[in-house]
């Protein structure tokens, strides 16, 4: 084990900014990407469902006209 205490761990031998800055940004970006990917899927499904309903409605209207 390298660290005597948690505070020693967090200070990273004086390089806390550089080490945690690296990991922090990296994991933040990964988190953001995951959120974006899931949100995109929700958006796409929502949008396509709306289109599908609209298409069904026009098809029905056309049926009635004929």
């Amino acid at each position, binding site marked *: 084990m390298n660290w005597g205490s948690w505070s020693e761990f967090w200070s990273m031998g004086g390089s806390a900014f550089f080490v945690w800055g690296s990991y922090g940004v990296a994991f933040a970006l990964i988190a953001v990407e995951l959120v974006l990917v899931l949100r995109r899927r929700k958006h796409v499904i929502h949008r396509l469902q709306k*289109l599908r309903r609209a*298409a069904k409605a*026009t*098809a029905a209207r*056309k049926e009635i006209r004929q």
Partner: protein
Amino acid sequence: MLEVTELACLRGDRLLFADVNLTVSPGELVRIGGPNGVGKTSLLRLLCGLSLPEHGAVRWHGRRIDRHRDAFHQDMLYLGHSAALNDLLSPIENLRFAAATHGRDAHEATCEAALERIGLSLQRDLPAKVLSQGQRRRVGLARLYLSEDVPLWILDEPFVALDVDAVRDLAEWLDAHCARGGMVVMTTHQDVPFRTAVRLFDLAEAAC
């Protein structure tokens, strides 16, 4: 012979039309009808291979046009909403360039005759950008007078912006093309009298 089978066209989120079936035989003049925005221009662009269909196929003499593009383009002439003129070139230069790049007869005299015919001899050497709306359109249409031997003409609203004389003249020329066994597929909202029996293909029926 142009054959269209089960054609469907998607633009953005909207399926414009589906299951369009159409056959055009020599001597026929087909007019694609339908209100604004029904998809006439989109259909013509599919017919001439500028865009790819969502479903279905277009065949020329039994061969798919996307597989035998060059042979099809040899037999086809398309005029769209725009006149395809370069603004800096004169009518005669534009005409010669169009003919030459399509491998057609592009002699000075032939082009002059076509310009004469559309009544632009006077504007022969003006840059195209100063022409009036109707004159631009006429230069675009002059290509028809150089393409007697091209069997299939696909024309998008050819009569727009033309004055009455020009409309009459063009209608006669289309008649003549059909009479010599050519095919014309076109759209127009104007009521133009043809001698040939016009076959109306109402796109509104195929619209989704």
